[in-house]
Every structure is written in structure tokens, then in C-alpha cells.
């Protein structure tokens, strides 16, 4: 195959790099100097997963759907007072342990989507690196603390079928 040098294109390429050089020198770079200045992530960014413990029924759906098996759940049954007077005591699942190992988590979000009781939420918080890898195992207290950073859920669309909770 004969070689056809694309000479105008070659100079155009040099122009592109030189232009970028000049804009960076005069107007600054596109990047930010991270630890000194921070960019706010988008409000729905997948930073960390938060747990609302009261909603969790330890149904294990999240743990079973997790591709990395990074969710650990233990629970036991407890009797709770009946809802109506004179009724039988209810049996509820009490959560003993809910850990997410962020050293394994790949932020796929399947657990958040699969949760039928709105117990797991995405939070945009992302600065939780640790010197020790074992510290990346967040227990249910720490996961509960992330709830404070979870943004408000957006309003439903007008005319959406609103299934109110009992």
C-alpha cells in the first residue's frame, strides 16, 4: 500500500496540542487540585450506600443479589406488640448485623434497586478511604450515619400512581 502522508492534518494536530497548551497556561486547566479544591459530585452520584435500619426486614434480598457477596446480614426473630388491641403478637425480624465490605463492593447498586422496603440508599459522599483495608467494612451504625448525607428523593411525576404506605 503506498503511503500518503497527510501533511495538513499533521500540522493541524500540532495546532491542537499547542492550543491546549496555551489555553491551559492562560485560562487554567480543566482539572482541579483535588485535596485543596473539591468538585461537588452530582447529587445522585453513587458514592456510598446508606442503610435505614428501621426499614430493613433482614430479608436477605440484597445479600443474595450482591455480585461480590460483600453484604453480611444476621438477624433473629422477635415478638412485637400487636398492632390492634387484642391481637396476636407480631413476629418481626430484628437486625443484628448489617455490614457492607467496601473493599469488595463494585458500586453496581443492585442491592439498592432490589430492596423492597426502601432500606438502602445511594449517598454522594465519597471520601471514606482508610489506611487499613479492614476498616472499609462498614457496620450498620456507620451505614446508618451515611443516611444523613442521602439527598431527598425527587418528587413523583404529576399523575403518578401514588401507593401510599399504610
Amino acid at each position, binding site marked *: 500500500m503506498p*503511503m500518503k502522508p497527510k501533511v495538513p492534518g499533521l500540522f493541524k494536530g500540532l495546532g491542537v*496540542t499547542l492550543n*491546549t*497548551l496555551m489555553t*491551559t497556561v492562560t485560562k487554567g*486547566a*480543566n*482539572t482541579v*487540585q483535588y485535596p485543596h479544591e473539591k468538585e461537588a459530585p452530582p447529587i445522585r452520584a453513587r458514592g456510598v450506600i446508606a442503610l435505614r435500619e428501621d426499614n430493613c426486614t433482614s430479608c436477605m434480598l440484597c445479600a443474595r443479589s450482591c455480585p461480590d457477596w460483600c453484604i453480611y446480614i444476621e438477624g433473629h426473630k422477635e415478638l412485637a406488640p400487636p398492632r390492634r388491641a387484642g391481637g396476636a403478637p407480631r413476629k418481626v425480624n430484628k437486625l443484628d448485623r448489617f455490614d457492607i465490605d467496601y473493599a469488595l463492593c463494585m458500586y453496581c447498586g443492585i442491592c439498592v434497586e432490589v430492596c423492597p422496603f426502601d432500606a438502602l440508599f445511594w449517598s454522594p459522599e465519597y471520601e471514606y478511604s482508610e489506611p487499613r483495608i479492614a476498616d472499609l467494612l462498614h457496620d450498620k451504625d456507620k451505614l446508618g450515619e451515611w443516611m444523613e448525607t442521602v439527598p431527598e428523593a425527587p418528587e413523583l411525576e404529576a399523575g403518578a400512581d401514588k401507593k401510599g404506605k399504610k
Partner: protein
Amino acid sequence: MLAIVIPYWGQSLLRVLGGTVAVLLPAGTIVYLFLFKMMSFMQSRLGPMEAGPYGSMQLFAEVGKWLQKEDIIPEKADRVIFKMAPLIVLVSTFLLVAVVPFGPDAYFTQFDAGVFYMLAVSSISVLGILVAGWSSANKYSLLGGLRAAGQLIAYELPMVLAVIGVVIQAGTMNLQTIVVAQNGGEIFGWNGLGNPYILTQFVGFGVFMIAVQAELTQAPFDMPIAESELVSGYMTEYSGFRFLIFFIAEFATAGVFSLIASVLFLGGWGIPFSWFSWHNINEIDDWMNVVGPLIMFTKMMALVFVIMWVRFTYPRFREDQLQRFAWKALIPISLLNIMATAVLKVAF
């Protein structure tokens, strides 16, 4: 000329110190200014900013990091040769800088076969690279070394042929005399600019710079170290201090080749002699020995800027494109250039 007489040991000491400075200072400046900063700016980022003001101490941090690393030698490597290879590459750089004139009296050595010596010595680094690739007992290294050998030999030829034009025009192979001839020369009787050979040998200059780019294995000619397919080729198995030597040699050689290109084509350390009505090298004032190196440094920086600019702009040549470009484009062009130069030399 200088009136002070320096004893022989003093001269030797000065040469060793000067040589080290002439190799390491450009290398450091090139790495910081072009590799760290210019490349980052061309990619719209700032590059190292933490170590020192604007990351100016980053180089020391990098060197410190490399010095701390373990010196790993593969089990099946040819240990002696493996250890020798980076030094061979670096030595070729030091030998190259020895022949570059920095001023009327500021040179390490000067002899009539300067251009010949320069071209001969610059190919020593090929040996170092080939040896490094072979002794690493690693197929990536071997492939990289072979590619490097093929490429460096292919591009040595256009480089030699491009320089021949200058040699014909100057009528000498002494680099110092070439500088004097350029600055003392005249263009059709007008001597306000001297006669830098880039004006007449622009084809040779172009071919020389392209060949230099390939000799330095800088992109787009970085097939031998193609990091995405050969994981740095012949340097794969090197770590710590030995890798550092390869690294220094790469950028120091870029600086030295730019020095040589500025000597051959851009008038070297000189300023047009007519400005101060000098007529030959003996009339040049002593202060040129201080200004000369600065002029050389400026010209070197300009040329390295071009080399790095090209490096950061173009993607890599394929191996067959690379060889075809050398044998079918550069060598015929430089041969034609030699013929034209010879004819014009005889005609005028």
C-alpha cells in the same frame, strides 16, 4: 583567546564537572519543563504541583523514589551484561557531549573528525539497548531490543546523510569550524545574520530532526518501547537505579542531539561575527565563553520543545510504516539533498 593557563589536572576536573553538568542539567530541565509540565498543559491538566512551588522539586522526589527501590535482576538474566547495559547507553551520551563546542574556548575536546566521531559514538547506545533486551531473559524485552536495533540502524542512515550536506557546505568535519563558518559567513554579500545552514540545508535539517526523533525512540517512533504492547520493551526488567539511568540517558540524549543540531544547522554558540566586527575565531572576545553556553542552552530548549511537541501530538507508527518511511522516504530525500548541495557547492 583565554589568557589564563589552567594546569592539566584542573582542565581534566573542569571537563568532568562540565560534562556532568552538560548532561544532567539539560536532562533535568527537559524532564521537568517538557515531560512534566508541557505534556500536562497539552492535556489540559497541571502536572505535579505538590513537591515544591509548582512541583519544581518533583524530580528530586522521583529520583529519591527510584533510589529506594529494590534492584531486581531476573533469575535467568545474564547478570553482568544486564548490569552493564544502562551504563553503555549513558556512556554514549557522555561521549556525545564531549565533542559539542559551547564557546570559542568552552569545549571539552575538539578535533577535525568531530562530525564523524559524533555519528559513530551516537550508535553505541544501540548496542546498550540491544544488550539490555537480550540479557533480560524476557520476550518483551527481546522484541523491544530487536525493534530498537532495526529502527536505530534504519534511522542512523538518514541522519548521517543529512549531516553530509552540512559537511560539504562547510568543507570541514570539525564542529567548532562549522560554527565559525556559519557565523562568519555571509548571504550574497550580506553578513548581518551570518549564514546559519538551516537556510540552505533546510531539507537536511528536517531529515536530521526526524531521524533524531527516531533515534531517541520518542513517539511517533516509540515502537521499541511501545508501552501498551511491549510494556516498555528493553526496559521491562529494569527497576530502581538502573531504570533511572535509562531514563536520564533518554532525556539527556534528547538534549545532546538538540545541541548537535543547533551546532550543525542553527549557528551553535555563536552570534553573527559582523555584529562585533570579528573576523575569525581568534578575535572573539572572552565573554563569549559565558554567553555561548547560554545561547546553546536556549537553542537546545527550542529544539527539544519541538521534539517533545511532536512526541505529545502524534500516535505511534506501525513497524512497517516506520521502516518504509526511513528507507523509501528519508534516505532518497537526503541523497537528493547531498547531490544538490554538491552541485551547488561546485557551481558557486
